[in-house]
Protein backbone atom coordinates (compact mmCIF):
# COMPACT_ATOMS: atom_id res chain seq x y z
CA UNK A 1 0.00 0.00 0.00
CA UNK A 2 1.31 3.47 -0.87
CA UNK A 3 1.77 5.92 2.00
CA UNK A 4 -0.68 8.73 2.46
CA UNK A 5 1.75 11.29 3.90
CA UNK A 6 4.21 13.20 1.74
CA UNK A 7 7.59 11.59 1.44
CA UNK A 8 10.19 12.94 3.85
CA UNK A 9 13.07 10.61 3.02
CA UNK A 10 16.46 12.25 2.51
CA UNK A 11 17.43 12.49 -1.14
CA UNK A 12 20.27 10.00 -0.96
CA UNK A 13 17.92 7.38 0.40
CA UNK A 14 15.24 8.06 -2.19
CA UNK A 15 17.70 7.31 -4.99
CA UNK A 16 18.46 3.82 -6.18
CA UNK A 17 21.61 2.14 -4.88
CA UNK A 18 24.66 3.00 -6.91
CA UNK A 19 27.08 0.11 -6.80
CA UNK A 20 30.62 1.20 -5.94
CA UNK A 21 32.92 0.53 -8.87
CA UNK A 22 35.88 -1.44 -7.59
CA UNK A 23 39.13 -2.63 -8.96
CA UNK A 24 39.15 -6.40 -8.76
CA UNK A 25 41.90 -7.32 -6.40
CA UNK A 26 42.82 -10.30 -4.38
CA UNK A 27 41.09 -10.42 -1.02
CA UNK A 28 41.55 -12.83 1.78
CA UNK A 29 38.15 -13.66 3.11
CA UNK A 30 38.98 -14.42 6.69
CA UNK A 31 35.34 -14.10 7.70
CA UNK A 32 34.20 -16.92 5.44
CA UNK A 33 36.97 -19.17 6.65
CA UNK A 34 36.16 -18.53 10.29
CA UNK A 35 32.49 -19.02 9.67
CA UNK A 36 33.29 -22.45 8.29
CA UNK A 37 35.43 -23.29 11.31
CA UNK A 38 32.83 -22.20 13.83
CA UNK A 39 30.17 -24.10 11.91
CA UNK A 40 32.29 -27.23 12.04
CA UNK A 41 32.74 -26.75 15.79
CA UNK A 42 29.02 -26.31 16.33
CA UNK A 43 28.32 -29.40 14.28
CA UNK A 44 30.77 -31.32 16.42
CA UNK A 45 29.12 -30.04 19.60
CA UNK A 46 25.67 -30.93 18.32
CA UNK A 47 26.77 -34.41 17.34
CA UNK A 48 24.46 -37.06 18.73
CA UNK A 49 25.91 -39.29 21.39
CA UNK A 50 27.65 -42.28 19.83
CA UNK A 51 25.55 -45.41 19.71
CA UNK A 52 26.82 -47.70 22.43
CA UNK A 53 28.22 -50.92 21.12
CA UNK A 54 26.11 -53.68 22.53
CA UNK A 55 28.94 -55.65 23.98
CA UNK A 56 29.31 -57.08 27.38
CA UNK A 57 32.71 -55.43 27.70
CA UNK A 58 31.56 -51.87 27.24
CA UNK A 59 33.64 -49.80 29.65
CA UNK A 60 32.22 -47.15 31.90
CA UNK A 61 33.27 -43.57 31.08
CA UNK A 62 35.84 -43.21 33.89
CA UNK A 63 37.51 -46.43 32.80
CA UNK A 64 37.52 -45.36 29.18
CA UNK A 65 39.43 -42.26 30.14
CA UNK A 66 41.88 -44.24 32.23
CA UNK A 67 42.30 -46.75 29.45
CA UNK A 68 43.09 -43.93 27.02
CA UNK A 69 45.69 -42.47 29.35
CA UNK A 70 47.35 -45.83 29.96
CA UNK A 71 47.33 -46.68 26.28
CA UNK A 72 48.98 -43.39 25.36
CA UNK A 73 51.58 -43.95 28.05
CA UNK A 74 52.33 -47.44 26.80
CA UNK A 75 52.72 -46.24 23.22
CA UNK A 76 55.05 -43.46 24.35
CA UNK A 77 57.21 -45.90 26.22
CA UNK A 78 57.49 -48.57 23.53
CA UNK A 79 60.24 -47.89 21.04
CA UNK A 80 60.49 -51.13 19.15
CA UNK A 81 58.74 -51.43 15.78
CA UNK A 82 57.40 -54.85 16.70
CA UNK A 83 55.79 -53.58 19.86
CA UNK A 84 54.27 -50.65 18.02
CA UNK A 85 53.02 -53.01 15.36
CA UNK A 86 51.20 -55.06 17.98
CA UNK A 87 49.68 -51.92 19.46
CA UNK A 88 48.56 -50.84 16.01
CA UNK A 89 46.87 -54.20 15.54
CA UNK A 90 45.10 -53.68 18.84
CA UNK A 91 43.64 -50.33 17.84
CA UNK A 92 42.86 -51.69 14.38
CA UNK A 93 40.86 -54.48 15.94
CA UNK A 94 38.92 -51.99 18.03
CA UNK A 95 38.15 -50.01 14.89
CA UNK A 96 36.34 -53.03 13.49
CA UNK A 97 33.66 -52.49 16.11
CA UNK A 98 32.86 -48.98 14.86
CA UNK A 99 29.83 -48.35 12.71
CA UNK A 100 30.68 -47.43 9.09
CA UNK A 101 29.86 -43.76 9.54
CA UNK A 102 31.92 -43.54 12.71
CA UNK A 103 34.74 -45.29 10.93
CA UNK A 104 34.65 -42.81 8.06
CA UNK A 105 34.75 -39.90 10.48
CA UNK A 106 37.61 -41.54 12.29
CA UNK A 107 39.64 -42.11 9.14
CA UNK A 108 39.20 -38.61 7.77
CA UNK A 109 40.27 -36.79 10.90
CA UNK A 110 42.97 -39.28 11.73
CA UNK A 111 44.50 -39.04 8.25
CA UNK A 112 44.41 -35.25 8.41
CA UNK A 113 45.99 -34.99 11.83
CA UNK A 114 48.61 -37.55 11.01
CA UNK A 115 49.58 -35.67 7.84
CA UNK A 116 49.80 -32.53 9.92
CA UNK A 117 52.13 -34.37 12.29
CA UNK A 118 54.27 -35.38 9.33
CA UNK A 119 54.55 -31.79 8.18
CA UNK A 120 56.12 -30.82 11.49
CA UNK A 121 58.50 -33.69 11.59
CA UNK A 122 59.84 -34.09 8.07
CA UNK A 123 62.77 -31.66 8.51
CA UNK A 124 64.19 -34.11 11.02
CA UNK A 125 65.00 -36.36 8.07
CA UNK A 126 68.14 -34.30 7.54
CA UNK A 127 68.93 -34.09 11.22
CA UNK A 128 68.37 -37.60 12.45
CA UNK A 129 67.88 -39.79 9.45
CA UNK A 130 65.00 -41.73 7.96
CA UNK A 131 64.55 -44.34 10.68
CA UNK A 132 63.98 -41.79 13.43
CA UNK A 133 61.56 -39.98 11.17
CA UNK A 134 59.59 -43.13 10.40
CA UNK A 135 59.53 -44.33 13.98
CA UNK A 136 58.45 -40.94 15.24
CA UNK A 137 55.76 -40.57 12.66
CA UNK A 138 54.47 -44.06 13.23
CA UNK A 139 54.24 -43.45 16.95
CA UNK A 140 52.58 -40.08 16.48
CA UNK A 141 49.99 -41.60 14.18
CA UNK A 142 49.34 -44.37 16.64
CA UNK A 143 48.86 -41.90 19.50
CA UNK A 144 46.59 -39.79 17.34
CA UNK A 145 44.59 -42.85 16.35
CA UNK A 146 43.97 -43.76 19.96
CA UNK A 147 42.97 -40.25 20.94
CA UNK A 148 40.74 -40.00 17.90
CA UNK A 149 39.15 -43.36 18.66
CA UNK A 150 38.29 -42.07 22.11
CA UNK A 151 36.71 -38.94 20.64
CA UNK A 152 34.64 -40.83 18.11
CA UNK A 153 33.29 -43.27 20.65
CA UNK A 154 32.74 -40.92 23.56
CA UNK A 155 29.95 -38.44 24.07
CA UNK A 156 31.04 -35.07 25.42
CA UNK A 157 29.12 -35.66 28.63
CA UNK A 158 30.94 -38.96 29.24
CA UNK A 159 34.06 -36.94 29.79
CA UNK A 160 32.33 -35.03 32.58
CA UNK A 161 31.05 -38.26 34.10
CA UNK A 162 34.58 -39.60 34.05
CA UNK A 163 35.98 -36.51 35.76
CA UNK A 164 33.31 -36.75 38.41
CA UNK A 165 33.96 -40.44 38.99
CA UNK A 166 37.67 -39.78 39.43
CA UNK A 167 36.81 -37.43 42.29
CA UNK A 168 37.65 -34.29 40.43
CA UNK A 169 36.54 -31.36 42.63
CA UNK A 170 33.05 -30.07 41.93
CA UNK A 171 34.32 -26.63 41.00
CA UNK A 172 36.34 -28.12 38.19
CA UNK A 173 33.65 -30.47 36.92
CA UNK A 174 31.28 -27.55 36.93
CA UNK A 175 33.74 -25.38 35.05
CA UNK A 176 34.07 -28.05 32.39
CA UNK A 177 30.32 -28.47 32.15
CA UNK A 178 29.75 -24.73 31.81
CA UNK A 179 32.57 -24.42 29.29
CA UNK A 180 31.06 -27.09 27.06
CA UNK A 181 27.56 -25.63 27.26
CA UNK A 182 28.62 -22.07 26.65
CA UNK A 183 31.02 -23.00 23.91
CA UNK A 184 27.92 -23.71 21.91
CA UNK A 185 26.18 -20.47 22.88
CA UNK A 186 29.20 -18.26 22.34
CA UNK A 187 30.03 -20.07 19.11
CA UNK A 188 26.51 -19.43 17.86
CA UNK A 189 26.73 -15.81 18.88
CA UNK A 190 30.07 -15.40 17.12
CA UNK A 191 28.71 -17.08 14.01
CA UNK A 192 25.68 -14.82 13.86
CA UNK A 193 27.73 -11.69 14.48
CA UNK A 194 30.06 -12.70 11.67
CA UNK A 195 27.02 -13.16 9.44
CA UNK A 196 25.77 -9.68 10.35
CA UNK A 197 29.22 -8.28 9.69
CA UNK A 198 29.29 -10.09 6.37
CA UNK A 199 25.92 -8.58 5.43
CA UNK A 200 27.21 -5.08 5.91
CA UNK A 201 30.61 -5.57 4.33
CA UNK A 202 30.36 -4.03 0.90
CA UNK A 203 34.02 -3.33 0.20
CA UNK A 204 37.33 -4.95 1.12
CA UNK A 205 38.00 -4.42 4.80
CA UNK A 206 40.82 -2.01 5.39
CA UNK A 207 41.27 -2.65 9.07
CA UNK A 208 40.23 -6.21 9.78
CA UNK A 209 41.87 -6.14 13.18
CA UNK A 210 39.69 -3.33 14.45
CA UNK A 211 36.67 -5.40 13.50
CA UNK A 212 38.05 -8.49 15.13
CA UNK A 213 38.77 -6.43 18.23
CA UNK A 214 35.18 -5.34 18.52
CA UNK A 215 33.94 -8.83 17.62
CA UNK A 216 35.78 -10.41 20.52
CA UNK A 217 35.26 -7.42 22.81
CA UNK A 218 31.56 -7.91 22.23
CA UNK A 219 31.93 -11.62 22.81
CA UNK A 220 33.63 -11.00 26.14
CA UNK A 221 30.91 -8.62 27.26
CA UNK A 222 28.34 -11.18 26.19
CA UNK A 223 30.17 -13.81 28.22
CA UNK A 224 30.13 -11.53 31.21
CA UNK A 225 26.42 -10.95 30.82
CA UNK A 226 25.88 -14.71 30.49
CA UNK A 227 27.90 -15.27 33.65
CA UNK A 228 25.78 -12.80 35.60
CA UNK A 229 22.57 -14.38 34.33
CA UNK A 230 23.84 -17.87 34.96
CA UNK A 231 24.81 -17.03 38.49
CA UNK A 232 21.42 -15.48 39.15
CA UNK A 233 19.74 -18.57 37.74
CA UNK A 234 21.95 -20.84 39.80
CA UNK A 235 21.16 -18.96 42.97
CA UNK A 236 17.47 -18.91 42.16
CA UNK A 237 17.59 -22.69 42.03
CA UNK A 238 19.22 -22.89 45.42
CA UNK A 239 22.83 -23.24 44.34
CA UNK A 240 25.14 -23.65 47.31
CA UNK A 241 28.50 -24.30 45.71
CA UNK A 242 27.89 -28.00 45.34
CA UNK A 243 27.34 -29.00 41.77
CA UNK A 244 25.77 -32.34 41.03
CA UNK A 245 24.13 -32.71 37.69
CA UNK A 246 26.57 -35.25 36.37
CA UNK A 247 25.67 -38.74 37.46
CA UNK A 248 28.47 -40.60 39.15
CA UNK A 249 29.29 -43.95 37.67
CA UNK A 250 30.57 -46.74 39.79
CA UNK A 251 33.44 -48.76 38.54
CA UNK A 252 32.69 -52.46 38.12
CA UNK A 253 35.06 -55.37 38.53
CA UNK A 254 34.86 -56.00 34.80
CA UNK A 255 36.37 -52.58 34.17
CA UNK A 256 39.35 -53.43 36.28
CA UNK A 257 39.77 -56.62 34.33
CA UNK A 258 39.83 -54.79 31.00
CA UNK A 259 42.27 -52.20 32.21
CA UNK A 260 44.61 -54.55 34.04
CA UNK A 261 46.55 -55.72 30.94
CA UNK A 262 47.54 -52.13 30.24
CA UNK A 263 48.75 -51.69 33.77
CA UNK A 264 50.65 -54.95 33.49
CA UNK A 265 52.38 -53.94 30.27
CA UNK A 266 53.16 -50.56 31.72
CA UNK A 267 54.69 -52.07 34.82
CA UNK A 268 56.81 -54.41 32.73
CA UNK A 269 57.98 -51.50 30.60
CA UNK A 270 58.85 -49.40 33.60
CA UNK A 271 60.56 -52.16 35.53
CA UNK A 272 62.69 -53.05 32.58
CA UNK A 273 63.64 -49.40 32.48
CA UNK A 274 62.79 -48.55 28.95
Amino acid at each position, binding site marked *: *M*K*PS*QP*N*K*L*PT*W*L*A*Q*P*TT*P*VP*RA*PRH*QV*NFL*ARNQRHVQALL*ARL*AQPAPVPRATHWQLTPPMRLLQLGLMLLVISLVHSPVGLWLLALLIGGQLLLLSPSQLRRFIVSWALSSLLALSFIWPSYWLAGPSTLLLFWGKSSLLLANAQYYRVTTALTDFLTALKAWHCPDVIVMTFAIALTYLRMLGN*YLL*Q*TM*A*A*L*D*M*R*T*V*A*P*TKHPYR*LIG*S*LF*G*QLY*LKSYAYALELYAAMEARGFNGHYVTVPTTHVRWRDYLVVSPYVGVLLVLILRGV
Partner: protein
Amino acid sequence: MELIKTAALSYDYPQTCGLDHLDLTIQTGEFVCLMGPNGSGKSTLLRILSGLAVASAGTYTFDGQVIDAAWLARPAQRQQLHQQIGMVFQNTDVQLFNSSVAEEVAFGPRQLGLSPAAIDQRVTDCLALTGATAFRDRVPYQLSGGEKKRVALASVLALNPTVLLLDEPLNGLTISAQTEMLALLQQLQAAEKTIIMASHNYQQVQTVGDRFIIFNEQHQIAADVTQAELAAQTTRQAELMKL
Protein backbone atom coordinates in the same frame (compact mmCIF):
# COMPACT_ATOMS: atom_id res chain seq x y z
CA MET B 1 10.50 -5.95 -12.86
CA GLU B 2 11.19 -9.44 -11.57
CA LEU B 3 13.79 -9.05 -8.82
CA ILE B 4 13.76 -12.26 -6.80
CA LYS B 5 12.87 -15.70 -8.07
CA THR B 6 13.20 -19.06 -6.42
CA ALA B 7 12.55 -22.42 -8.04
CA ALA B 8 11.99 -25.58 -5.99
CA LEU B 9 14.11 -24.06 -3.25
CA SER B 10 14.75 -26.38 -0.29
CA TYR B 11 16.94 -26.03 2.74
CA ASP B 12 17.89 -28.77 5.20
CA TYR B 13 19.37 -28.24 8.62
CA PRO B 14 21.45 -31.14 9.95
CA GLN B 15 18.51 -32.65 11.78
CA THR B 16 15.42 -30.90 10.47
CA CYS B 17 13.99 -29.49 7.32
CA GLY B 18 14.08 -25.69 7.01
CA LEU B 19 12.29 -25.10 3.72
CA ASP B 20 10.56 -27.47 1.37
CA HIS B 21 10.31 -26.77 -2.39
CA LEU B 22 9.56 -23.07 -2.50
CA ASP B 23 8.56 -21.38 -5.76
CA LEU B 24 8.07 -17.66 -5.57
CA THR B 25 8.66 -14.50 -7.53
CA ILE B 26 8.96 -11.03 -6.05
CA GLN B 27 8.81 -7.83 -8.11
CA THR B 28 10.78 -4.65 -7.50
CA GLY B 29 8.96 -2.31 -5.14
CA GLU B 30 6.74 -4.93 -3.53
CA PHE B 31 6.01 -5.03 0.20
CA VAL B 32 5.86 -8.72 1.07
CA CYS B 33 4.91 -10.10 4.46
CA LEU B 34 6.10 -13.60 5.38
CA MET B 35 3.78 -15.16 7.90
CA GLY B 36 3.47 -18.52 9.55
CA PRO B 37 3.84 -20.44 12.78
CA ASN B 38 7.08 -20.62 14.74
CA GLY B 39 9.69 -22.72 13.04
CA SER B 40 7.94 -22.67 9.68
CA GLY B 41 10.98 -21.32 7.85
CA LYS B 42 10.56 -17.54 7.64
CA SER B 43 14.00 -16.75 8.99
CA THR B 44 15.52 -19.51 6.90
CA LEU B 45 14.10 -18.02 3.71
CA LEU B 46 15.46 -14.58 4.63
CA ARG B 47 18.90 -16.08 5.27
CA ILE B 48 18.91 -17.62 1.83
CA LEU B 49 17.65 -14.48 0.11
CA SER B 50 20.40 -12.49 1.84
CA GLY B 51 23.10 -14.86 0.64
CA LEU B 52 24.08 -15.93 4.15
CA ALA B 53 22.97 -19.48 3.50
CA VAL B 54 22.87 -21.46 0.29
CA ALA B 55 19.91 -23.62 -0.65
CA SER B 56 20.36 -27.39 -0.36
CA ALA B 57 18.38 -27.86 -3.56
CA GLY B 58 16.69 -25.62 -6.12
CA THR B 59 17.81 -22.24 -7.42
CA TYR B 60 17.68 -18.67 -6.23
CA THR B 61 17.91 -15.89 -8.78
CA PHE B 62 18.47 -12.28 -7.78
CA ASP B 63 18.23 -9.59 -10.44
CA GLY B 64 18.83 -12.15 -13.18
CA GLN B 65 21.85 -13.66 -11.50
CA VAL B 66 21.76 -17.18 -10.09
CA ILE B 67 23.12 -16.99 -6.56
CA ASP B 68 24.88 -20.20 -5.56
CA ALA B 69 27.82 -21.21 -3.40
CA ALA B 70 30.36 -20.72 -6.18
CA TRP B 71 29.08 -17.25 -6.98
CA LEU B 72 29.05 -16.23 -3.32
CA ALA B 73 32.56 -17.56 -2.77
CA ARG B 74 33.99 -14.60 -4.65
CA PRO B 75 34.27 -11.73 -2.17
CA ALA B 76 33.65 -8.96 -4.69
CA GLN B 77 30.38 -10.51 -5.87
CA ARG B 78 29.29 -11.27 -2.34
CA GLN B 79 29.91 -7.69 -1.32
CA GLN B 80 28.02 -6.42 -4.32
CA LEU B 81 25.01 -8.52 -3.33
CA HIS B 82 25.22 -7.28 0.22
CA GLN B 83 25.17 -3.71 -0.94
CA GLN B 84 21.89 -4.38 -2.70
CA ILE B 85 20.34 -6.34 0.15
CA GLY B 86 20.12 -5.16 3.73
CA MET B 87 18.90 -7.36 6.55
CA VAL B 88 17.67 -6.76 10.08
CA PHE B 89 18.14 -9.97 12.07
CA GLN B 90 15.54 -11.51 14.32
CA ASN B 91 18.07 -11.35 17.14
CA THR B 92 19.35 -7.77 16.80
CA ASP B 93 21.81 -8.39 19.63
CA VAL B 94 24.24 -10.04 17.28
CA GLN B 95 23.97 -7.33 14.68
CA LEU B 96 25.53 -4.47 16.59
CA PHE B 97 29.26 -4.82 16.98
CA ASN B 98 30.66 -1.31 17.17
CA SER B 99 31.46 0.74 20.22
CA SER B 100 28.94 3.55 19.66
CA VAL B 101 25.65 3.96 17.86
CA ALA B 102 27.06 6.60 15.52
CA GLU B 103 29.96 4.29 14.66
CA GLU B 104 27.55 1.47 14.09
CA VAL B 105 25.56 3.42 11.52
CA ALA B 106 28.68 4.86 9.91
CA PHE B 107 30.20 1.39 9.48
CA GLY B 108 28.50 0.76 6.13
CA PRO B 109 28.83 4.15 4.44
CA ARG B 110 32.45 4.36 5.45
CA GLN B 111 33.26 1.51 3.11
CA LEU B 112 31.62 3.29 0.20
CA GLY B 113 34.37 5.89 0.02
CA LEU B 114 32.06 8.82 0.90
CA SER B 115 33.39 12.08 2.29
CA PRO B 116 33.28 12.47 6.10
CA ALA B 117 30.57 15.10 5.74
CA ALA B 118 28.44 12.78 3.62
CA ILE B 119 28.92 9.96 6.08
CA ASP B 120 27.89 12.19 8.94
CA GLN B 121 24.85 13.30 6.95
CA ARG B 122 23.81 9.70 6.44
CA VAL B 123 24.23 8.88 10.12
CA THR B 124 22.14 11.85 11.18
CA ASP B 125 19.43 11.10 8.60
CA CYS B 126 19.16 7.43 9.45
CA LEU B 127 19.03 7.99 13.18
CA ALA B 128 16.36 10.65 12.69
CA LEU B 129 14.27 8.37 10.47
CA THR B 130 14.31 5.54 12.95
CA GLY B 131 13.88 7.75 15.99
CA ALA B 132 17.26 6.84 17.43
CA THR B 133 18.85 10.29 17.51
CA ALA B 134 18.69 10.39 21.29
CA PHE B 135 21.17 7.56 21.73
CA ARG B 136 23.64 8.55 19.08
CA ASP B 137 26.58 8.42 21.47
CA ARG B 138 25.49 5.45 23.53
CA VAL B 139 27.02 2.00 23.39
CA PRO B 140 24.82 -0.30 21.26
CA TYR B 141 25.60 -3.20 23.57
CA GLN B 142 23.85 -1.46 26.46
CA LEU B 143 20.68 -0.42 24.65
CA SER B 144 17.26 -1.91 25.35
CA GLY B 145 15.72 -4.42 22.97
CA GLY B 146 13.51 -1.90 21.19
CA GLU B 147 16.32 0.63 20.94
CA LYS B 148 18.56 -2.01 19.40
CA LYS B 149 15.91 -2.72 16.75
CA ARG B 150 15.89 0.93 15.71
CA VAL B 151 19.66 1.18 15.57
CA ALA B 152 19.86 -2.04 13.56
CA LEU B 153 17.42 -0.67 11.01
CA ALA B 154 19.29 2.64 10.87
CA SER B 155 22.59 0.87 10.28
CA VAL B 156 21.09 -1.14 7.44
CA LEU B 157 19.43 1.91 5.84
CA ALA B 158 22.71 3.81 5.82
CA LEU B 159 23.92 1.61 2.96
CA ASN B 160 20.81 2.49 0.93
CA PRO B 161 20.00 -1.08 -0.10
CA THR B 162 17.49 -1.91 -2.84
CA VAL B 163 15.97 -4.76 -0.89
CA LEU B 164 15.25 -4.73 2.83
CA LEU B 165 14.89 -8.07 4.56
CA LEU B 166 13.37 -7.58 7.98
CA ASP B 167 13.04 -10.47 10.41
CA GLU B 168 10.34 -9.56 12.93
CA PRO B 169 11.40 -5.90 13.11
CA LEU B 170 8.37 -4.90 15.14
CA ASN B 171 9.00 -7.24 18.06
CA GLY B 172 9.66 -5.43 21.28
CA LEU B 173 8.47 -2.06 19.99
CA THR B 174 5.61 -0.14 21.57
CA ILE B 175 2.43 0.31 19.52
CA SER B 176 3.29 3.89 18.60
CA ALA B 177 6.85 2.91 17.66
CA GLN B 178 5.45 0.13 15.49
CA THR B 179 3.22 2.60 13.68
CA GLU B 180 6.17 4.92 13.09
CA MET B 181 8.32 2.13 11.76
CA LEU B 182 5.61 0.88 9.42
CA ALA B 183 5.12 4.41 8.10
CA LEU B 184 8.85 4.61 7.44
CA LEU B 185 8.77 1.29 5.62
CA GLN B 186 5.92 2.50 3.44
CA GLN B 187 7.92 5.58 2.52
CA LEU B 188 10.83 3.40 1.60
CA GLN B 189 8.52 1.35 -0.55
CA ALA B 190 7.40 4.53 -2.28
CA ALA B 191 11.09 5.16 -3.06
CA GLU B 192 11.10 1.89 -5.04
CA LYS B 193 12.68 -0.25 -2.33
CA THR B 194 11.55 -3.83 -2.07
CA ILE B 195 10.58 -4.87 1.43
CA ILE B 196 10.31 -8.44 2.66
CA MET B 197 9.25 -8.68 6.26
CA ALA B 198 8.73 -11.72 8.45
CA SER B 199 6.09 -11.27 11.08
CA HIS B 200 3.69 -13.31 13.10
CA ASN B 201 1.42 -10.46 14.09
CA TYR B 202 -1.21 -10.15 11.44
CA GLN B 203 -2.95 -7.20 13.06
CA GLN B 204 0.15 -5.04 12.74
CA VAL B 205 0.85 -5.74 9.12
CA GLN B 206 -2.53 -6.38 7.56
CA THR B 207 -2.85 -2.87 6.16
CA VAL B 208 0.72 -2.30 5.01
CA GLY B 209 1.66 -5.46 3.11
CA ASP B 210 0.90 -5.70 -0.60
CA ARG B 211 1.28 -9.40 -0.55
CA PHE B 212 1.22 -12.13 2.05
CA ILE B 213 3.19 -15.35 1.80
CA ILE B 214 1.94 -17.76 4.40
CA PHE B 215 3.98 -20.77 5.49
CA ASN B 216 2.61 -23.93 7.02
CA GLU B 217 4.23 -26.15 9.62
CA GLN B 218 5.64 -28.41 6.89
CA HIS B 219 7.91 -25.54 5.79
CA GLN B 220 5.94 -25.08 2.56
CA ILE B 221 4.00 -22.13 1.18
CA ALA B 222 0.36 -22.55 2.21
CA ALA B 223 -0.85 -19.42 0.47
CA ASP B 224 0.54 -16.57 -1.59
CA VAL B 225 -2.10 -13.87 -1.76
CA THR B 226 -2.46 -10.11 -2.25
CA GLN B 227 -3.90 -7.89 0.42
CA ALA B 228 -7.24 -7.70 -1.35
CA GLU B 229 -7.45 -11.46 -1.81
CA LEU B 230 -6.62 -12.07 1.80
CA ALA B 231 -9.24 -9.59 2.95
CA ALA B 232 -11.84 -11.78 1.26
CA GLN B 233 -10.73 -15.00 2.98
CA THR B 234 -12.18 -14.73 6.44
CA THR B 235 -11.21 -18.20 7.65
CA ARG B 236 -7.58 -17.66 6.69
CA GLN B 237 -7.60 -14.28 8.37
CA ALA B 238 -8.95 -15.87 11.52
CA GLU B 239 -6.11 -18.41 11.38
CA LEU B 240 -3.51 -15.67 10.96
CA MET B 241 -4.93 -13.80 13.92
CA LYS B 242 -4.13 -16.80 16.06
CA LEU B 243 -0.43 -16.88 15.14
